[in-house]
């Protein structure tokens, strides 16, 4: 979609004042829900997303059970009031696809062989949307999984890069997503830099892709530190000690 808006100026400043490799502000809260086995609330730019985990528990109905490992079901959903034009409640094709790619990414890092015939349900609910919801959602889901005590080989994290006005930038905001030229969401297992989610739409030369993915992975590592900080912060209890 073309527009007259200049998304990035000559000095490399974007509409919201960010530089090309700057992330939007991110806040992560661990365990805000009472019933869920693990949960996480994330604010990423204007996004407000809740993730909750139930499991592992017996996989039912029985026909979805896998004899050798747990089945991982991530469900991504946008609340009807989360977008400017109200969305009809219920899954649509977009959320079904996003649910699938997120499930597959999470399945890679969860040590599912420890729970044959079980299922792990992950709910990602977008309460307020502003571009990059699948990356923020996966990032929150990862923290919720850790909070639930689910064994994983890594804590996955996601971040997107894109192209606006011919320039590759990190973490697209709303107008950049609507009027930019490319969008590249990426999820990695940060310990090994393995790529577990990768989608792209728009137009990128190979050189631009190299630039974009490097930016996205760098950004993901920054977010990964925030996830870890949030998890540890929950369990650091300051206490007076009589000297």
């Amino acid at each position, binding site marked *: 979609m073309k527009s007259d808006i200049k998304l990035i100026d000559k000095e490399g400043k974007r509409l919201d004042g960010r530089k090309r490799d700057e992330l939007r502000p991110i806040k992560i809260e661990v365990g805000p*829900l*009472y*019933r*869920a*086995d693990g*949960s996480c609330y994330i604010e990423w730019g*204007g996004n*407000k997303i*809740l*993730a*909750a985990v*139930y*499991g592992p*528990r017996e996989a039912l109905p029985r026909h979805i059970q896998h004899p050798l490992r747990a089945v991982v079901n991530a*469900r991504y*959903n946008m*609340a*009807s*009031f*989360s*977008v*400017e*034009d*109200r969305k009809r*409640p*219920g*899954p649509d094709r977009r959320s079904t696809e996003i649910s699938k790619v997120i499930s597959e990414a999470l399945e890679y890092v969860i040590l599912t062989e420890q729970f044959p015939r079980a299922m792990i*349900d992950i*709910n990602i*609910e977008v*309460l*307020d*949307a*502003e571009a990059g919801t699948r990356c923020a959602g996966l990032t929150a889901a990862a923290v919720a999984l850790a909070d639930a005590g689910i064994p994983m080989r890594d804590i996955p994290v996601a971040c997107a890069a894109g192209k606006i006005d011919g320039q590759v930038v990190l973490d697209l905001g709303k107008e950049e997503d609507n009027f930019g030229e490319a969008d590249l969401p990426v999820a990695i297992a940060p310990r090994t830099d393995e790529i577990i989610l990768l989608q792209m739409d728009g137009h990128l030369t190979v050189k631009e892709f190299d630039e974009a993915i490097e930016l996205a992975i760098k950004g993901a590592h920054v977010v990964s530190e925030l996830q870890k900080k949030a998890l540890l912060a929950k369990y650091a209890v300051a206490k007076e000690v009589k000297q």
Partner: protein
Amino acid sequence: MNSTLISSIKKDYLNKLAEQKKRIDGRAFDEYRKISIETNIVRKAEGSARVKIGNTQVLAGVKMDVGEPYSDSPESGVLTTSAELIPMASPDFEAGPPREDAIELARVVDRGIRESEVIDLDKLCIEPGEKVWIVFVDIHVLDYDGNLFDASSLAALAALSTAMVPAERFEMGKDYPLPIKEPPISCTFVKFNKAIVVDPCLDEETIAEARLTVATDEEGNIRAMQKGLSGSFTLDEVKKVIKASIDNGARIRKILEDAVGRDHGKKN
């Protein structure tokens, strides 16, 4: 990991406590858990509120659009309420279209708003017979620990009380606050072992024989009622519940007014 399976021991314990006029969490029969109301949570929504009653958490969002009126009320706006018991709120909620619990919840909250004329729908007419404002109230249950009726209705009212009509987006002038009148407050009670308690927690709801929700206004008049579950109430019990609703309603109305007055106009 199993959830609604309540053991016979817990059930007996709750019943025994009831005989001693006690509740499992130490509350009095007519005592609510801690209520907190936060408004203007969702920027994209025209109005929003998150209500916590104890551990129960409900988020309500108000969205508005321009559309056609119903043919039998050509000069009135349209109100539509829906509720989703999303799977994250409880290990027992499944994904899928709303089933009877969600539908009952939505309809009870809807009646509480509509029949008491909290929104003056006649003020939402743009062009008679052609264009009116449509108000969508969407209730999103995030954490279920009993008493969804009160949490949901309070969230819906708080969201409506702080909602702005998005006139600018439709090029109809400046945004202005949605015209709202004094709302009725709903109070829910459950009965088990002859005890009637207000604001049931999850365990109490699980063993409840019957449930009664009563909505009252600031003058102490009754605006809505809903009895649920397959047990019964005596007329005397119903009258006691009405009185308790009026008392609790006044207290909760104050909490709502403080939250709405305090947060009105603030956008996150």
